[in-house]
């Protein structure tokens, strides 16, 4: 008799799929304004802002960024613009 398969779900990135396709607008960083203050990282509800290895760049993971626009509103230096995604 077979053992139990207990239905345990496992953590993975993209549990709800590539949530980047949910995006209506895309946050685009203007690196000339960015001070790397980290506020966008702090307030992103989707954990998609990364401060790149060499600490020189704020990188947004567009595969998963839902385009909520919080980073854009909260950036103290107005360094993030929301750009309408093309409706393909």
């Amino acid at each position, binding site marked *: 008799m077979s053992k139990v398969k207990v239905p345990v779900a496992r953590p993975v990135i993209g549990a709800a799929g590539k949530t980047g*396709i949910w995006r*209506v*607008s895309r946050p685009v960083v203007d690196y000339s304004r960015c001070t790397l203050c980290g506020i966008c990282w702090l307030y992103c509800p989707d954990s998609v802002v990364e401060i790149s290895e060499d600490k020189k760049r704020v990188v947004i993971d567009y595969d998963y960024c839902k385009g909520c626009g919080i980073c854009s509103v909260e950036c103290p230096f107005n360094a993030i613009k929301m750009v309408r995604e093309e409706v*393909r």
Partner: protein
Amino acid sequence: MSRGEEPDILEISWYGRGGQGVVTAAQILVWAAMLEGKYGMAIPFFGAERRGAPVIAYNRISSKPILVRGSVKKPNIAVVVDSSLIGIFDPFNVVRDNGYLIFNSVERPEVGGRKNINVSYVDAVKIALDIGLVIAGIPLVNMPMLGALAAVTEVVNVDSIVQAVPKVISSKVEENIEAVKRGAREVKRL
């Protein structure tokens, strides 16, 4: 043996994203059919409903009362309200031979290898934006698509859609009707 054997049922699939009004469109279509003395059904498939997340809805339209409630697997018509979903849904392959594919698109869509289907498209975003039908940043592209559907296929008349709109929608009725009409007018066949 497919459901198609139940004669006289037209099946439609709508592919869209949360906030675009896909379910409302399907519902209006049933009203429109009813106004023409037909029967209809609008079956939304609910997952986790989220703004921007993929959404699917089905219609069945017939001259007789409709019995089938299972999900639509091979629609006669697929309405792709948001082309960005093509990677997730597969409208090309599901549509029956001689069926219809209607896209919301600025330009001529790529249809790949699929033959034997009638493809058309309409720039619904532009229409919605022109008319000011935007909620929370999302253009309400459902009305132009309904108009396009009615114009391209024989499911219902554009007029019936126009009459059905106020049964379901209570604000900006005029604008919505205008959007239906423009969708019908501006749709392009491939």
